[in-house]
């Protein structure tokens, strides 16, 4: 039944390369999350406060991001834009795809967060003499941040997991690098097993860091 010989040596030899690729994975995921948070915040505010074409664009963005596969979105940034003569590098494809996706999901989280803060608080802070900007940055945003903290953490995990799709558009992050080595040595199982462990560790580190940060940030 078990006439397969595991060869871990080639994997161990390329472990430094894999770890370097893991850093690239993290880099793309973090960048996509930062952009995603900024854009997602804008999308949520537009959907809550505006009418007209801008609102329509924001809603379309959110619904497209949430209702189509992430892989489809990557392909779209990959070859879809090629139809308009726009050719992105694999790095940009993954970054654009992840940002598009994260912004859409985060926008819904932010919207829920904003709706959870009662309007009366804004009116109260305005009547205390705060400007609209002050009311938002000092009263609303801190509360919203508390509400969306866990969804953001989850989205960060998703971003890392989703970046593995880079493998299918020729991006050499952790998965792409693994596939590269695996197809060169035909030790597919061993390579992907090690990569799975690396992903697991990354996810656990993110969750752990988030929990640590939460205890520091949210002390009542």
């Amino acid at each position, binding site marked *: 039944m078990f006439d397969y010989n595991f060869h871990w040596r080639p994997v161990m030899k390329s472990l430094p390369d894999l770890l370097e690729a893991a850093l690239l994975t993290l880099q793309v995921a973090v960048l996509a999350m930062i952009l995603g948070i900024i854009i997602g915040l804008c999308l949520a505010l537009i959907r809550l406060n505006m009418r007209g074409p801008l609102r329509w664009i924001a809603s379309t963005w959110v619904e497209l991001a949430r209702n189509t596969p992430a892989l489809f979105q990557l392909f779209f940034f990959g070859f879809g834009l090629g139809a308009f003569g726009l050719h992105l590098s694999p790095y940009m494809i993954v970054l654009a795809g992840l940002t598009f996706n994260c912004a859409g999901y985060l926008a819904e989280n932010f919207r829920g967060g904003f709706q959870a803060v009662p309007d009366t608080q804004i009116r109260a802070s305005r009547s205390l003499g705060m400007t609209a900007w002050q009311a938002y940055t000092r009263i609303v945003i801190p509360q919203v941040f508390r509400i969306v903290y866990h969804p953001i953490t989850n989205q960060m995990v998703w971003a890392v997991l989703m970046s593995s799709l880079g493998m299918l558009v020729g991006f050499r992050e952790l998965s792409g690098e*693994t596939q590269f080595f695996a197809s060169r040595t035909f030790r597919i199982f061993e390579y992907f097993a090690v990569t799975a462990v690396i992903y*697991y560790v990354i996810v656990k580190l993110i969750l752990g860091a988030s929990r640590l940060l939460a205890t520091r940030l949210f002390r009542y």
Partner: protein
Amino acid sequence: MEPTVSFFSGFAPKDLLFLGEAALRTMWISVLSISIGTVLGVIFGWILYEGKWAAALTVAPILDVFRSVPLIIQLVLFYNFAPIVGLNLDPFASGVVILTIYTASLVANVARGGIEAVQPSMRRAARSLGMSYWQDLRHVVLPIGGRAVFPAWVGVALGVMKDSALVSVLGYVELLKASQILITRTQEPFLILTLAGAFYFALSYPISRYAASLERKWAQ
């Protein structure tokens, strides 16, 4: 294959049929894995709820692995692992197995949340009315807890439907793989990707809207 003058050929009506068939395959693999995965997931969720620390030490970490490793890595890993233990699975079967376990790992948490959403006093009341443990689960916990987590379950199911696109990495020709094949032949990425995206959207958007409206209705 018949010899043709040009390597590329335009998008023909029969290609729509090809895409349609692939869309059916996407539906088939999703429905199969979601339904088996949901049943398994509910059982796991019940084990997590009843098992207390024993389950927390055994089932929970295993399910956690499937949530912390990218689906694409799981698919490649399983597809290459099955022959090692003497199983010869085609891409479809491998895809179903992994998607099912993946669904189960996500549904398990949802199901446990559902059981926890039922107030203990309600369950004690059911038991004291003479219901057996299983009657209590079937007639009290299922309707109340199920209603509480139904929207979350819809989210999981739609997520798996979209993630089924990843089975293409094993060579299973579902919708996204089919569109990739067509793009290579017709060189019309924008049109074909739009068609594929529209299909996913048309499937996912109404269901998510319906679930959201149900959630609002039940919240009142």
